[in-house]
């Protein structure tokens, strides 16, 4: 009899849903959990979502409950032959059930609109400005006022709003159009800079797209020190899944220390060391075609970094290559040997380096603290 199976399965469904809701609240390791906001901007969203969610749940319970009730109460009873009265409608009722949801939605619309404007506004007072430049498939972070340029790991001070300008560096802008401040700050001119990305650190803010040709803005803020993960949220090609990032929120003094460390030149490795050999390889090889390191010079010119991450303080970042590998010797060597093999579509090609070269280069990179 379908009825018994119907009610039993529905009970199972309800139990499942309850479990689901509970599990959502209890998930460990949820560094990207939108339901665990860690700053005022993410909180504002959460404070809007939760009541709407509960209203939706209430509507769900009422409507599904009604549905359940109706299919049980009015199921065909064996032996019944009469055809029910052919009711065509009830205009008053239909008008009522059109107006009531409309009113509820007006109620939802008001905080929605105020939320839109609040999140779009540039905060006044002390603000940290950051340029976020999207590349295929890594994040560049440039602090215009601090003269710091890094990749994949974004350090911010707690309690201070961070006003991020989001742009894609793009090819061909040079000489054709004046890049905007964000683009100018970025390392552009490389293939793979022309697609849309989306910058998303769920616990600190909603997401905002990185669109070639325009500069978008996003405000984020962390209330507590910690590491918050994020990733690209707009399909951008082969390694879209591997375009991750970390936000490290620090106390103001720790943040200042970090800034000073980032502003310093790279250390020169001691002569004769394997690292010195690596530096030599770096300056004479293809590396300087894309990567800048602040400190070493080629023909008295500083390295200009058209297209790849700035490596000056690589070891101060606990992840690299779009934050998919921990920054350690083994991973760096694996990467160096054949980047596209470990990251599909990587614009850093396999240079066919010998084991010797790889070890030397990685030894040098490991000095870039």
């Amino acid at each position, binding site marked *: 009899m379908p009825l018994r199976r119907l009610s039993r399965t529905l009970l199972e469904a309800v139990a499942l849903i309850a479990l689901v809701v509970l599990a959502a609240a209890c998930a460990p390791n949820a560094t990207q959990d939108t339901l665990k906001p860690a700053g005022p901007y993410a909180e504002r969203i959460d404070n809007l979502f939760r009541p709407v969610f509960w209203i939706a749940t209430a509507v769900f319970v009422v409507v599904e409950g*009604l*549905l359940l009730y109706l299919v049980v109460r009015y199921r065909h009873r064996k032996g019944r032959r009469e055809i029910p009265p052919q009711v065509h409608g009830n205009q008053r009722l239909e008008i009522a059930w059109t107006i009531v949801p409309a009113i509820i939605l007006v109620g939802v619309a008001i905080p929605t609109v105020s939320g839109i404007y609040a999140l779009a506004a540039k905060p006044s007072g002390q603000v940290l400005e950051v340029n976020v430049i999207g590349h295929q498939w890594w994040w560049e972070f440039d602090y215009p006022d601090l003269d710091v340029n890094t990749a994949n790991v974004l350090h911010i001070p707690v309690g201070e709003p961070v006003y991020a300008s989001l742009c894609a560096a793009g090819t061909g802008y040079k000489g054709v159009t004046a890049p905007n401040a964000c683009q100018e700050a970025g390392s552009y001119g490389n293939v793979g800079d022309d697609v849309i990305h989306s910058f998303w650190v769920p616990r600190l803010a909603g997401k905002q797209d990185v669109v070639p040709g325009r500069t978008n803005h996003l405000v984020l803020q962390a209330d507590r020190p910690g590491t918050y993960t994020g990733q690209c949220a707009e399909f951008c090609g082969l390694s879209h899944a591997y375009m991750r990032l970390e936000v490290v929120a620090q106390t103001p003094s720790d943040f200042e220390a970090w800034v000073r460390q980032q502003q310093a030149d790279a250390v020169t490795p001691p002569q004769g060391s394997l690292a010195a050999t690596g530096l030599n390889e770096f300056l004479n090889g293809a590396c300087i075609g894309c990567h800048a390191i602040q400190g070493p010079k080629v023909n008295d010119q500083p390295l200009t970094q058209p297209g790849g991450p700035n490596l000056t303080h690589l070891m101060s970042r606990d992840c690299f290559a779009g934050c998919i590998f921990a920054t350690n010797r083994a991973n760096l060597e694996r990467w160096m040997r054949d980047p596209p093999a470990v990251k599909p*579509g990587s614009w850093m090609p396999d240079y066919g380096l010998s084991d010797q070269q790889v070890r030397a280069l990685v030894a040098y990179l490991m000095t870039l603290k």
Partner: protein
Amino acid sequence: MATVSVPAEGARGGLLRRPTATTGFWSWITTVDHKRIGILYGITAFAFFLIGGIEALFIRLQLAQPDGKILSASTYNEFFTMHGVTMIFLVVMPLSAAFFNYFIPLQIGARDVAFPRLNAFTYWAFLAGGLFIYSGFFLGGAPNGGWFGYAPLSTVEPGNNMLFYALGLLMTGIASTASAMNLAVTIINMRAPGMTMFRMPVFMWMALVVQLLLAFALPIITVGLFQMLFDRRFGTHFFDPAAGGDPVLWQHMFWLFGHPEVYILILPAMGIVSEVLPVFARKPLFGYEFVVFSGIAIGFIGFGVWAHHMFAVGLGPVANTAFGISTLIIAVPTGVKIFNWLGTLWKGDIRFTTPMLFAVAFIGQFVVGGLSGVTHAVVPADYQQTDTYYVVAHFHYVLFGGAIFGLFAGVYYWWPKVFGRMLNERVGKLNFWLMVIGFNLTFGPMHILGLQGMPRRIQSYPATLGLGIWNMVATIGAFLIATSVLIFLLNAIASFRRPRDAAADPWDARTLEWSVSSPPPPYNFEEIPVVHSLDELWHRKYAETEGGVVVPVPAGGAGTDPAHGGSGAGPEGHGAGGHAIHLPGPSYFPAVAALGLPLIGYGVIFHLWMAVAGAVVLLAGVYGWAIEPASE
């Protein structure tokens, strides 16, 4: 029995001798009978459903655990792109078209659609487009830029993949546009005498709104696809930021079509549910006018909400506010229908046949999808939800839990009418329960995955995010769905082993298609019926006493005897019996013309001379068609 005339063997008038086969392979290639074309659409759509489902299974296998290694990145990108393209353009739309083609003339009391050869052409163009897109797998790469093909990725990524996308969708777009003209004119212009617009079945209203949505939305995506094609192939700069172009223009073009498209996808299923519920609750649809008006409202407002797919693009607070509000507004006519359906069940005499089960599940699941849609309209919340698995959950609840379930209700409901055999009820119920459980197990957890930070379109995720459990559950659910579909297939195949002896009206239904035999004769109705009310067939079978009690009308009078498969043969019949019924003759030219399209497509990608050849074939097909008389 009416005599039917088809063009005589070798009849002159056209470029080629007129095909005459009525059975066999060639009769299907040259058919212009809306019923056969409907069956062709249905079978082809179902085949694509299986392929799209297999793509989904691979996706789920890849995502079942963290750091999955089943598919390479490039294959994964092809699979999720093709899954979306297939399900939307090659399954739900053609499956809806199958029902429209088969049942529009039958429900409005006509013998065929307004332009039978155009009808055939739309099927062949659809088939050509679908095969063309899939041929990408063998010719360098299937589309891999997502079903939404955002520029600049879709215009700069090397390879021909997105050329197959643009050209293939242009072909299916031609099919749908032509179909829209045909079916809209049919519904507006070919209704039986007495069938005013407000005596049409709701399914007809939904069909009409869908055709108008197609007619006005498809041109926009056509332009967008040409722009993408030209950017890739001919060096234009529509979406090229280095030349001052705006990638967001593509998004506007796409979603101006894409949003009406989702209503194109759901309204047919809503129409089916609006037919099925009254039949199995034994009372009319509650609030017919409201349901009709809400469908029309959805059609109109549907053109005003497109940028709600673009809340995170950076259009600015004014635009986001406007579209957030318009999206909340459209929730009203959408939600209202739910209450009308509940009102239909209230005080009914509900029989839980398989079609009814699917229709009831549609309501339950569509509510979930609709509610998550409302949370999307809360724009700041959408900044977290967009581009995550929360959205994937939302649209699968409305498109699978809604549209596919509704279409399955239609399949089970109308199977006896189309094939003359019933589907097995017990197997049907097994199909249903497995599908309901599998579906909810697959897509329910995706709400959580999205809220926990899992973006869309990623081929793997790290173990550190805690997403493994629900992904595994979703994968298990997906295999349950696959099992349920297999069971349906077995049910379908088994039905053909049974004799073709279904009654004309096995469900005691309400609309005109049940007044003719199962399957209907080629000319549909012996006499074109004269219609006096909504639910015309029901009123021929039953009348109400003064007290509102429903009693059967005595047979043999002005009513119909469903067992004998004739339409109203009494004094209300249109014309005297014995006059010849003129049917449109079969034709090669729709298929010939459609053949030109993929030739043009391959030509644009590979060798331009082939495009010229294709254009010649297309032109020749159209000319042959124009010169050939529609009927003798």
